[in-house]
């Protein structure tokens, strides 16, 4: 394992935050522009509307009360005699100025507007004090003989609004960039801190893979999920390592011992080379030992095959009830011949997804264990029934069972009840059973507080098939 320290991680969200912020800002800017344009045009309309309203008001008053009343009400008159240039300031002061003309076009009342009478709405441009102003005029007939000319300043809303808008946008842009920078700094700091802590811890774990694990806080954010996943992976690797260690121990006993026996036999054969009968005996014994070794190897390969998970691809829907009933029926004579009772109780129609060959092996292994390790004339049973969300398969015997101190290890590779390893078998049978269960997402456990060895297997099933 390399012991090089990794360089600190520098992860930056800058470009993303900035991009997002600018995008958001642009959207706001465009909306603001569109809104302003609409506001400006409606404002312009509104200004024209004021003139039209004044006209309508004047017409109404004239009709009701006559010209004198009208003139009394509208007392905003600009006398150009005082200040000929003062039209614009007067307009600013009075808001609206008017002039009344008779049928001959002579000025008879109101201010003297510097425009000729023109019917309807017109726009004029005037310069005053080096500034350009826009003036709206509206000419209309008061009666057959009288005409009125109204004048009003058109406020340059547009450039005012636009300049305000521009100012606001620039301010907004600066604020956006500032906030982006701040947010980026905060996120970067947090993320890099977590990432670097993770890397440091991982470096530490590489030194002591069996004991240390990544720390997780209560945040339940992505980093914690990552830490949990890595911890799980480390646990799996540790388990694999333990398996390999156990394997070495098992191999030392279960393979080396019979191999040594074969070697001994060969020596004995050399000694007894002229004794035909002895030779035959040695060969038979050697053959037995070799068979045991080959069986162990085959079982190990089988176990590997199952644990690799490859066989899951070949899973098919199968009738579990039929499979179990069939197998149990096959074993019934074998149990009878050995003086034991096999009781079979299988509920019909249970279907599941799986490998029928593996499930058969599972049942054979458990039944054969019962056959071999239960008392003479023991009762053995196979039961299948529905159970909460799945099916429950129970295979058990009524004695003598597995001693409580051995129960925790019974599924481990090469674990044997008989520590002197005198009896045939290689301690892989139950490991294979457990591996087959795990492949099928089934859960197996050895029941405690029982007279004999009773195994419960909970399997997920296909309902309603």
């Amino acid at each position, binding site marked *: 394992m390399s012991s090089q320290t990794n360089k600190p991680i520098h992860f930056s969200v800058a470009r993303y935050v900035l991009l997002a912020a600018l995008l958001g800002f642009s959207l706001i800017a465009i909306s603001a522009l569109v809104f302003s344009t609409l506001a400006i045009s409606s404002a312009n309309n509104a200004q024209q509307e004021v003139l039209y309203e004044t006209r309508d008001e004047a017409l109404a008053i004239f009709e009701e009360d006559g010209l004198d009343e009208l003139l009394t009400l509208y007392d905003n008159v600009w006398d150009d005699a005082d200040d000929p240039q003062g039209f614009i300031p007067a307009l600013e002061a009075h808001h609206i100025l008017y002039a009344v003309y008779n049928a001959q076009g002579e000025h008879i009342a109101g201010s003297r507007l510097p425009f000729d009478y023109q019917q309807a709405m017109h726009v004029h441009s005037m310069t005053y004090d080096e500034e350009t102003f826009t003036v709206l005029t509206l000419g209309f007939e008061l009666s057959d003989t009288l005409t009125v000319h109204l004048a009003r300043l058109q406020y340059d809303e547009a450039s005012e609004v636009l300049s305000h808008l521009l100012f606001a946008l620039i301010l907004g842009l600066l604020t956006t960039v500032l906030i982006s920078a701040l947010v980026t700094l905060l996120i970067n700091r947090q993320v890099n801190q977590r990432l670097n802590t993770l890397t440091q811890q991982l470096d530490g774990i590489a030194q002591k893979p069996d004991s240390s694990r990544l720390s997780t806080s209560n945040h339940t954010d992505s980093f914690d999920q990552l830490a949990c996943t890595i911890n799980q992976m480390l646990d799996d690797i540790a388990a694999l390592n333990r398996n390999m260690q156990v394997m070495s121990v098992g191999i030392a006993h279960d393979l080396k011992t019979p191999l040594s026996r074969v070697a001994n036999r060969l020596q004995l054969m050399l000694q007894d080379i002229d004794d035909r009968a002895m030779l035959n005996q040695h060969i038979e014994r050697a053959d037995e030992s070799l068979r045991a070794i080959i069986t162990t190897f*085959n079982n190990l390969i*089988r176990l590997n095959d199952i644990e690799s998970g*490859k066989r899951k691809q070949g899973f098919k829907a199968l009738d579990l009830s039929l499979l179990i009933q069939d197998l149990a029926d096959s074993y019934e*004579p*074998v149990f009878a011949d050995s003086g034991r009772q096999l009781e079979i109780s299988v509920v019909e129609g249970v279907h599941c997804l799986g490998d*029928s*060959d593996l499930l*058969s*092996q599972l049942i*054979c292994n458990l039944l054969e264990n019962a056959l071999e390790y239960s008392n003479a004339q023991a009762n053995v049973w196979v039961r299948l029934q529905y159970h909460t969300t799945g099916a429950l398969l129970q295979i058990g015997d009524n004695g003598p069972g597995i001693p409580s101190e051995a129960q925790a290890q019974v599924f481990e590779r090469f674990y044997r009840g008989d520590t002197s390893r005198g009896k045939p078998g290689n301690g892989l049978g139950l490991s294979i059973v457990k591996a087959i269960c795990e492949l099928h997402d089934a859960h197996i456990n050895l029941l405690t507080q029982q007279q004999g060895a009773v195994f419960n297997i909970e399997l997920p099933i296909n309902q309603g098939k």
Partner: protein
Amino acid sequence: MKILLVEDDLDTAEFIGRGVQQQGDALTHVTDAKQGMLQASIGEFDVMIFDRLLPHMDGIDAIRILRESHIETPIIVLTALADTADRVAGLDAGADDYLVKPFAFSELYARLKALARRSPLKQEALELSFADLTLNRATQVVTRAHTVLDLMPREYKILEFLLRHPHQIVTKTMLLEHVWGFSFDPKTSLVQTHMSRLRNKVDKPFDIELIKTVRGSGYVLSDK
């Protein structure tokens, strides 16, 4: 029988060669796949044995090529690899049987005989018979000397298999594979127990023993 052996391991070849010679059959031995394919296409063999791990080419590929060239001679594959994927790959490529090393010679020989003597008609026949024994596949009724025998389902299947291979040695492993569908070897005497029950029903009440044990090999249906 004329047998072709494609095997590069000389120890295995010698082991097989000796056994075949003792049985009085003819063996042609080549050590690589190319030679094997050549021999297969020119020779007239009853059955062929292909090892999987051959130099330059996987035996399976050679088998596939032979099948694509319409060479239908039965083939059995030998290998040290025992996992399901390999077994399936072999059968998919066109092999007819698969045997894992190490094997007893009697096992190999029994399978060779079964493959060489395979008659397609027998596979499809509705009624199988041997001496005074008849089995009707449609009704699943078995009679011997016109007496109906009451067989359990497994016993029926074993008898059916024996009837499909008359006068041929049927090994325990063959029965486990074909009658029980197991790819593993259960420890107990499952086959023996059922065989003895079958014989109690088929042979015991009658004069002539039809199901015989061949020590070290298996069982055979024979009236000699």
